[in-house]
């Protein structure tokens, strides 16, 4: 199968243009980074507001018995920020799901699939173009949210910490390396499911289930069962990289022109 970058870029151009004009989808996409920045900022603010609250010590000692009363608020801030990265990954995972479900299953719903498949573009070029149009916004939004997140957390925590908390090495590694891997995972799952189901909503709902393991992971961190850190997230990243490679292979194999045309056009 040949690959002509110009045709893949044409698909990207069209999908990106369509996304820019899709206010509903842009609105849904905007909610996620807002929550991702606002919630941890409020958490940090709550710890900073009354760092001597005795209940903070109780909470901190649940996770680490050696924590001193004076360090409880700082410990909880550090732990929250480390744990929050797990939830932050939902953003690069979920944004491509929103975009790809709408773009692949949407082609079927709008009856635009047949003219597209009748063009010279190969299946691989279509998948690459659509993936770029979903991955690029996800990564850009994640980067932008991360910058806002650092600023807002640092501003709120300054009173207690007297210095910048973020960005730290773990977060930079996570946002630059692990977040794109999660974006790739979300996109792959969404394209694969969209190619097999009839409508974009169902594709979104089914693809969204991929975020459940992350919720379980963060829940375990909060419960103290798992202890998050740079090494922990590196392992998670390696597992997701492996899944990405498997998905890439499956997507190219299953994004079959004949199957798509005979089932959905």
């Amino acid at each position, binding site marked *: 199968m040949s690959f002509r970058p110009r045709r893949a870029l044409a*698909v990207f151009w069209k999908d990106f243009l369509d996304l820019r004009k899709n206010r509903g989808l842009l609105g849904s996409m905007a909610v996620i980074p807002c929550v991702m920045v606002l919630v941890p900022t409020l958490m940090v603010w709550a710890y900073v507001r009354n760092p001597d609250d005795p209940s903070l010590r109780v909470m901190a000692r649940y996770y680490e018995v050696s924590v001193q009363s004076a360090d409880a608020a700082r410990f909880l801030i550090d732990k929250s920020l480390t744990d929050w990265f797990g939830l932050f990954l939902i953003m690069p995972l979920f944004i491509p799901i929103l975009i790809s479900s709408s773009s692949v299953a949407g082609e079927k719903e709008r009856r635009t699939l*047949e*003219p597209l*498949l009748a063009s*010279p573009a190969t299946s691989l070029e279509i998948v690459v173009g659509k993936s770029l149009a979903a991955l690029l916004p996800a990564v850009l939004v994640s980067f932008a949210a991360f910058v806002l997140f650092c600023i807002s957390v640092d501003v709120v925590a300054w009173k207690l910490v007297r210095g910048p908390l973020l960005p730290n090495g773990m977060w930079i590694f996570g946002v630059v390396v692990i977040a794109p891997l999660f974006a790739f995972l979300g996109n792959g799952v969404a394209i694969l499911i969209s190619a097999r189901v009839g409508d974009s909503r169902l594709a979104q709902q089914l693809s969204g289930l991929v975020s459940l393991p992350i919720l379980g992971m963060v829940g375990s961190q909060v419960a103290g069962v798992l202890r998050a850190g740079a090494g922990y997230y590196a392992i998670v990243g390696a597992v997701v990289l492996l899944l990405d490679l498997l998905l890439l292979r499956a997507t190219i194999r299953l994004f079959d022109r*004949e199957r798509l045309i*005979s089932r959905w056009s």
Partner: protein
Amino acid sequence: MSGIRVEGLGKRFGTRVAVEGLSFEVAPGEVFGLLGPNGAGKTTTVRMLTGLLTPTWGDATVAGISSRHGGEDLRRKVGLLTEQPGLYDRLTGKENLLFFIKLNELDEDAAWARALGYLERFGLKGREDEPCGSWSKGMRQKLAIIRTLVHDPEVVIFDEPTSGLDPDSARTVRDCIAELASEKRTIVLCSHNLAEVERLCQRVAVVKGRLLALSAVRDLRRAGHALQIKVAGDAARFLPALAALPFSPKALVEGGLLRVLLSDEEQQPEVLRALIDAGARVYHATRIERPLEEVYLELVRA
């Protein structure tokens, strides 16, 4: 330009045979009608011709390229107007066309100049910067036709091209199809509008899972030797005399004229003799072409 050559083409989906044993040729410059009821396998045939589906049996050579192995080279040479316009509603008319210009890796300025010519011809010039979602059904159909032609294809397949168009626009489309054929492009027209098929097509294939008829439109209309006879007085009183003939021709009275369907030209003198023997004063007898619709319905109902 080498037209279309179809040999023993067939497609099976699971255990269901959608179409089988199709063989026909379409020459460059010809407008060829592909007729058949819903579910007859027209769309499957078109999809095999455009390389979207791989045939289970046989092969089709379109513009010199095998549909079985042609892939992108084949799709570059074929323009397909699908039954639904299939436009991106949020994109403007211009953006919809530019997308397909880019997909075909064309020189954007030259292709857009050609597109502008079509936009003007179809009365869409000045509207190209509006989102297609706000357009009427007819405008959308016209833009889909322009999209089909924007890469200057050798072979053009139209599925219901005038669907949703007002008479004036439908005429513009028909003129455009005739002009494309005059440029030696190969045209396949799938339509339920038989009057349109009669006007545009030189030959037609009637399919219903298999090939029912393949003929020039005129020959198809002449099939069955219909005879129109003007007799003095009430024509209906001669129907029993015709029914008594050994070959019992189908006869009816239409507008005071007797219309008799014969299976063989040799039956013509027998009919006239029977009428004269029954006392009819025959003013004239004319061999007529039957409406394509009548022939078509007879074929697909058989």
